[in-house]
């Protein structure tokens, strides 16, 4: 089976209309390469690629970019030694990289959110729709909810804003940079990362001022990788349902941070 044939199977099974012109394209390598194995990951870091290669998996399906910018534009970095070393490694080992991002988030429910919800002990795909009411959880406090997620993820650099003692029942969960809406009926939003200030809506400043004013609004920032990596495990299990005959393995990129 070639890499292109794997992608055709994904397109056939994805369940939403395929849109060309977005992020989900081959990034490097020959799509006609015969696949010896598939490695899936949140992000095709250099280290992740080395681990995939060591396991003889030559087709990498990555949720995020490879060249450290969302559109994977490499025009200005062709002389960058890190770019050259990573590119050299990819080419020498005949790796093929393809991104699966837009259509993963476009699926209903979004695999990233389904898996992310489990980090908050919400095992219900219905909670993964971004519209409608916030999801109702058994009453807890922001401090307890954050501690539970902390334990479940083992995240090294999770950041919380709001009064730890505030009561929580209504939450919204969003993947990666897509922080959920802090609607009037929402108490806590859980997401990957958000611009801290001077953006479209400054979630962090809002939660911070709410806490100072005694208004129950909180925010749990997991980190981009922590929020979306489990979604690629979810994707991997889904992929196994219609791609057979080649090994398929989820190779997490790992949390970049320590603190």
């Amino acid at each position: 089976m070639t890499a292109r044939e794997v992608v055709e199977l994904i397109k056939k099974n994805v369940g939403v209309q395929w849109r060309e012109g977005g992020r989900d394209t081959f990034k490097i390598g020959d799509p006609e390469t015969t696949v010896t194995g598939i490695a899936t990951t949140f992000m095709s870091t250099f280290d992740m690629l080395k681990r995939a290669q060591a396991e003889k998996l030559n087709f990498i399906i990555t949720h995020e970019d490879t060249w450290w910018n969302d559109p994977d534009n490499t025009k200005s970095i062709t002389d960058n030694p890190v770019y050259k070393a990573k590119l050299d490694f990819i080419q020498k080992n005949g790796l093929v990289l393809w991104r699966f991002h837009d259509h993963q988030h476009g699926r209903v429910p979004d695999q990233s959110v389904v898996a992310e919800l489990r980090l908050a002990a919400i095992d219900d795909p219905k909670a993964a729709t971004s519209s409608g009411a916030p999801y109702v959880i058994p009453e807890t406090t922001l401090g307890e909810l954050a501690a539970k997620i902390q334990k479940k993820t083992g995240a090294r650099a999770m950041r919380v804003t709001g009064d730890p003692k505030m009561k929580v029942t209504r939450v919204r969960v969003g993947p990666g940079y897509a922080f959920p809406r802090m609607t009037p009926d929402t108490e806590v939003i859980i997401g990957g990362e958000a611009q801290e200030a001077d953006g479209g809506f400054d979630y962090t400043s809002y939660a911070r001022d709410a806490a100072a004013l005694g208004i129950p609004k909180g925010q749990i920032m997991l980190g981009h990788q922590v929020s979306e990596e489990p979604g690629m495990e979810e994707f991997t299990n889904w992929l196994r349902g219609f791609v057979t005959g080649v090994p398929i393995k989820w190779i997490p990129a790992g949390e970049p941070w320590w603190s």
Partner: protein
Amino acid sequence: MDSERISRRNFARIAGGIAAAGLPVHGAAAPTADEVIKQIREGLGGEWPANGIDGLKAGSPDTPIKGIATTAMATVEVLRQAVKAGTNMVISYEPTFFGSRDTVAPPPAPGQQQAGGRGGFGSALNTDDPVYKAKKEFIDKNNIVIFRLRDHWRTKDGQMVNGLADALGWSARRVPGDLAIYEVPSSTLADTVASVKKKLNLRAGLRAVGDPKTKVSRVMLCPGAIAIDVMWNNYEKVDLLLAGEIREWECSPYAVDVVSAGQKRGLVTVGRVVSEDPGMRACAAWLKTVVKNIPVQFIPAGDPYWRAS
């Protein structure tokens, strides 16, 4: 100087000088917010377009100003401290009302969705929002004037960088000819991080990439947010790049890959607001030279994050 021709502004300066000498001042009317803003504009120069980011965000320009507080962000906590300290004008580097334009929409009609939601995924802040309402009430009740000063301050003589360097104890160590690179006493990344945490009074806001044992002596300081091209263009010059915030899916994997490629470097982010506080301390010092007749102080906004235990 002909005493009859002493302008109101010069008189205020002289009066301020007397006040600083500990003598009571009688009869000197406090300048209005508008007059203070004029002094800031003249002091910094440049164009001040009506649609720019910098400008009045709350309060009346006619308000007599008793004292000025500078901060990275006019949070509710900062405003409370400002009031307690007897100041009624806050100069904020970042927005007050939770978005770059400080705008607030009218509430939606019954049964309607909120129109004009800000940002791709953002909540639509409207005048009925409880956090907005309570903050606005506090501002109005205390007659606080809030002036945003970002664009014209960050372009002034590298003050945001100098301020951060000063807070870290490195201001005398700037590499000649470079605006943001410092040669600091050699230490491991782990020890440098511990020291930065302490000096900037951080809670959960600090995050690091890189081998904790990496030796650090050349540091680049980037208060605020940086984009990936800043790393592409500068990371190789230093052992540590310390920024306010970055885009996690662009800059942090680059820092990770740099290590995988065999280079020994670290990336540390301390949070956007925390990285900007020291530059606003520098702003307070500068304001004292321009607005001489009003007490000016700095109130840090501080680290908004805590860690779950």
